[in-house]
C-alpha cells in the first residue's frame, strides 16, 4: 500500500478534501470515500459511461481518472445537477419521458447530456446520439432518452428565451 | 370422463398411448386411475419441472385441482422466465 495522498477538490460547488491511495480511481474516491454513490460503475474500463462526471469543463469516465488527478479541480456529479429541491430540466425530462427503466445508467446519461446541451443548446438527433454513444443503456433502446434530451433542450431554450 | 394427456416422452410408459379417459373429481383422483392402468407412471408425471394444466390453464394447486367430466389434463414444462 502506498502512502495516502490528501486531495483538495470542489465537488458540486462545495470544497471537499479526501485522502486516497494513488491507485484509487476518482470513481472509487467519490463513491467509497466521499460517499457520493450516485455515480455508478458498470464496466471499470471506460466503455459504459455510467461513471460519467464533469471534471473541470469536460465530461470523463471517472473510472479512468485517478483520484489524485482531481486535485485542484472542480467536479460535478449527478448529486450536483438539481438546484436544491428543483430538478434540472434534464432530470425532469427523464422522468416525464420515462427515459429510465432500471436507472443504473441514468446518472451518467444526465451528466453527459448536460454537457451536450452546453455545447449544442438544441442538438439534432444525430448529434445527441453521437455525443451519448459512450453511455450504454440496456433497458430503453435509447428512444426515450433521446426524446428526453430533446425535450429538456426545448425547455431550457424556452426558459432562457422567456428570461431575455 | 376427463382426458389425461401424456407428454411425448412419457408415452414409453403407456405403450405409445397419447391420452386416456378416466374418471375422478380432482387431478389426483384421475392420477390414481391412471396409475392403476400404468403402474409407476405417476413419478414421471409429478415432477417439479412439470406443471399441471387443466382445461388449458396451469394450476398452482397441482393434484388438488378439481376437474369436470370434459376436462383436459396436460403435464407441461414449467416456465419461469426472464424479465
Amino acid at each position, binding site marked *: 500500500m502506498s502512502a495516502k495522498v490528501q486531495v483538495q477538490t470542489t465537488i458540486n460547488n462545495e470544497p471537499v478534501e479526501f485522502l486516497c491511495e494513488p491507485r484509487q480511481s476518482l470513481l472509487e474516491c467519490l463513491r467509497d470515500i466521499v460517499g457520493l454513490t450516485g455515480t455508478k460503475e458498470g464496466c471499470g474500463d471506460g466503455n459504459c459511461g455510467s461513471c*460519467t462526471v464533469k471534471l473541470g469543463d469536460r465530461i470523463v469516465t471517472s473510472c479512468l481518472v485517478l483520484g489524485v488527478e482531481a486535485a485542484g479541480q472542480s467536479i460535478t456529479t449527478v448529486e450536483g445537477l438539481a438546484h436544491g429541491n428543483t430538478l434540472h430540466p434534464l432530470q425532469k425530462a427523464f422522468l416525464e419521458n420515462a427515459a429510465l427503466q432500471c436507472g443504473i445508467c441514468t446518472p451518467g446519461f444526465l451528466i453527459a447530456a448536460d454537457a451536450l446541451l452546453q455545447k449544442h443548446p438544441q442538438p439534432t438527433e444525430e448529434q445527441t446520439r453521437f455525443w451519448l454513444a459512450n453511455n450504454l443503456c440496456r433497458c430503453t433502446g435509447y428512444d426515450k432518452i433521446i426524446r428526453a434530451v430533446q425535450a429538456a433542450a426545448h425547455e431550457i431554450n424556452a426558459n432562457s428565451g422567456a428570461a431575455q | 370422463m376427463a382426458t389425461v394427456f401424456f407428454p411425448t416422452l412419457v408415452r414409453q410408459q403407456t405403450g405409445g398411448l397419447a391420452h386416456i379417459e378416466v374418471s375422478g373429481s380432482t387431478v389426483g383422483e384421475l392420477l390414481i386411475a391412471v396409475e392403476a392402468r400404468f403402474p409407476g407412471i405417476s413419478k414421471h408425471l409429478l415432477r417439479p419441472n412439470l406443471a399441471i394444466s387443466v382445461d388449458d390453464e396451469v394450476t398452482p394447486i397441482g393434484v388438488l385441482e378439481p376437474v369436470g367430466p370434459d376436462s383436459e389434463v396436460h403435464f407441461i414444462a414449467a416456465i419461469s422466465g426472464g424479465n
Partner: protein
Amino acid sequence: MKAFDYAAPASLPEAVGLLASQPAARLLAGGTDLLVQLRSGRKQADVVIDVKKIPELNEITLAADHSLTIGAAVPCYRLTDHPAVQAHYPALAEVASWIGGTQIQGRASLGGNLCNSAPSADSIPLLIALSASAHIAGSAGRRSVPVEAFCTAPGRNLLAPGELLVSLHIPAPAPHSGAAYLRFIPRNEMDIAVVGAGASLTLANGVIAAARLALSSVAPTPLFVPAAGDSLVGQAPTPAALEAAARLAQAAASPISDMRGSAAYRRHLCAVMARRALELALTRAQENH
C-alpha cells in the same frame, strides 16, 4: 491493481529526471489505456508519472506556415474543437472525435494513442499520412523520428528507457492537398478499427504530386505502405489509379484473425478502406485551394 506512487512533474526536465530515477515508472496522460492495463494486470507500475502538468505537452501550436505542433498530452477534444485545426486539418479534427467516445476524448491524447502503440490505433495511420514526426525527450537529449518508425511491435515502440514523447509535429499541408482517415467498425462508435486507413494526397496540374497511405489493424504495427502512395505520383486521380493504390496497400497487409475480425475479412477491407480514404483525401484536395 498493485499499489503505486503518483508524481505530477511541472516541467520537462523534472519529468525526465524522475523517469531516469524510476525504472518501473509509467507515464500517464489521458490514462484511458494505461489505467485499464494496470487494472487488468497487463502492465505494472511502481510510480505513475502524470505528464499533464508539463506546459510543453499541453500545447497546440499552429505556426505561421500552418505547420502544427500537438503536445503529447493534449486531449482529443481540444483538437476537435480547435478552429484552426478544423480549418487546416479536418481529418485530424475528425479522428480526434472518433477515438473512444465523448468522455474518452476528454482525456485521451494522440500522444497517448501513439505511445500505446496498438496496431489498431486510429490516429497513427493519419499521422503517418500527414508525415508527422514524434519529438522525444530523454536524459540524453531530444530527438525526432517519423511516426511511421515509432511503433516496433504490438504495444511496443522505440522510446528508450527514460524517454518520453513531448509532441507531434505535422509539417504544413501543401496547397491542393487533402487527408482522410476512415475506419471500419461494426458499431458506429465505441469500437476498435477492424481496419483503418489514413491517406493524404496532393494535386498539382491535374495530377497527383504526392500521396501517402497507411493502414491500421492489419499488421503488428500501424502499417505505412510507401509503394501505394508512390504508385499514384504523376498519375491523374482516376478511380482506377486509386483502386490500384488500394490494392497495393492490401498486398502489403498481413492481418491476423481475432475477435474483431478474420484475416480474410480484414484483407478484404484493406482495399475498400484504403480506396475510400484516398477518395476522401482527393475530394478534400480538390476543395482545398
